[in-house]
């Protein structure tokens, strides 16, 4: 039996292509719908087999221009199909509600930090869409490696659409910080 909960558990095992956490922890998952398109399906024959079910998954991209979207779609379709036997899996990318760093789970934040990627605080003014000046500001993250506050913004743009680069003057490591959107 394919349920929303089962689909969600499958999605929790799919890592983001550019981030070392699952797409669910990253906050991409908006909705799952399990549909039974063949309305004439005879209820007396019991629950429909997975091959008669259509699964629709609404995902929210971090950035509109994220080049990993096609890869995410392919991975979701392939894994949900192989884990559940469903042959009709569809992924829609939606922009409502908009993605923001606030959607990243607590577990996801902790996991990112252990990989050297920091996330703006939920309460930081930057998270509301304000601009971060290209200087160390009150909203600057602590170094994920040594915890020092002596960090500076090296570049507002990083290796992926959603990250910027900081440098820690205490332990002399570079680290990535998610853009405050």
């Amino acid at each position: 039996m394919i349920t929303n909960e089962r689909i969600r558990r499958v999605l929790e095992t799919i890592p983001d292509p550019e981030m070392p956490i699952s797409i669910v922890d990253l906050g991409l998952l908006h909705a799952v719908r399990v549909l039974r398109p063949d309305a004439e399906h005879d209820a007396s024959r019991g629950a429909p087999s997975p091959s008669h079910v259509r699964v629709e998954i609404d995902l929210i991209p971090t950035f509109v221009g994220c080049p990993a979207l096609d890869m995410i779609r392919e991975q979701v379709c392939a894994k949900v199909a192989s884990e559940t036997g469903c042959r009709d899996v569809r992924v829609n990318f939606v922009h409502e509600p908009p993605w923001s760093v606030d959607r990243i789970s607590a577990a996801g934040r902790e996991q990112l930090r252990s990989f050297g990627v920091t996330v703006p605080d939920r309460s930081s003014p930057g998270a509301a869409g304000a601009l971060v000046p290209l200087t160390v500001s009150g909203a600057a993250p602590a170094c994920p490696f040594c915890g020092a506050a002596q960090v500076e913004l090296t570049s507002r743009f990083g290796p992926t659409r959603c990250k910027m680069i900081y440098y820690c003057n205490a332990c002399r490591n570079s680290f990535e910080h998610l853009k405050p959107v």
Partner: protein
Amino acid sequence: METLPDSLTTPLVELLLSIADDKLILGSRNSDWTGLAPILEEDIAFSALAQDDIAHAASLYEFVAQLTGDRADRLAYGRQPEEYRCAQLVELEDGFDWANVLARQFYCDHLDELRLSRLARSCYRPLAALAARLLAEERLSLGHADGWISRLLGSTEEARQRMLAALTALAAPACALCEPTVGVEALESAGVYPPAEGEMFALWSGAVAKTLQGAGVRLDLRPPGSEYTGGRRGRRSEAFAALLDEIAEVYRVEPEAAW
């Protein structure tokens, strides 16, 4: 509202194409700088911003395509030059001069911020949702452009003079950015494109002047006359055809190719 009255489809298509075409052409022009920007960090930044502009255009073409039953690829690459609605500013060749590129980006980003802020308040909910998302990303681009302009104007005498020259040279086409699209009044009165808190040219030139003022610069920005018709009505500059030929090359060979 969830669905758009039929009478507003054409005006909304005009408006959204003006934004999407600006972003497609600007993003394409800016892509020329990948590998050539002054420093490595800027190369990454500017390439990322060009990618954002083209992605924003793609999302708006997709939105228009769903309104009219068209295809996003055809809207992007398959129209005649006079069917595009971009401002002439984005078409101009930049002569591979970094000051020209920054001035153009600065002028355009300030307009995009204003347009997207209005659309994010639209009563047409699917459009407001998309615009809100684009606006959040647009602000990163605007902050980047403002930062460059301020720093170069406050830098060495040569940097200041070259930045000033570019800002001045592009001021006239930039002032035509706010040319209204056909039928925009109907969108405004219906709340699909809610009016700004003031007149668009005044808001745009005020925002531009504020950044320049921080660097002690005052530019004479004046709107073109009310009889002006330009890029928003399909009047293309000479540079446009060559640019379109280049970016539409793959589409013309294989219209079904995936982006």
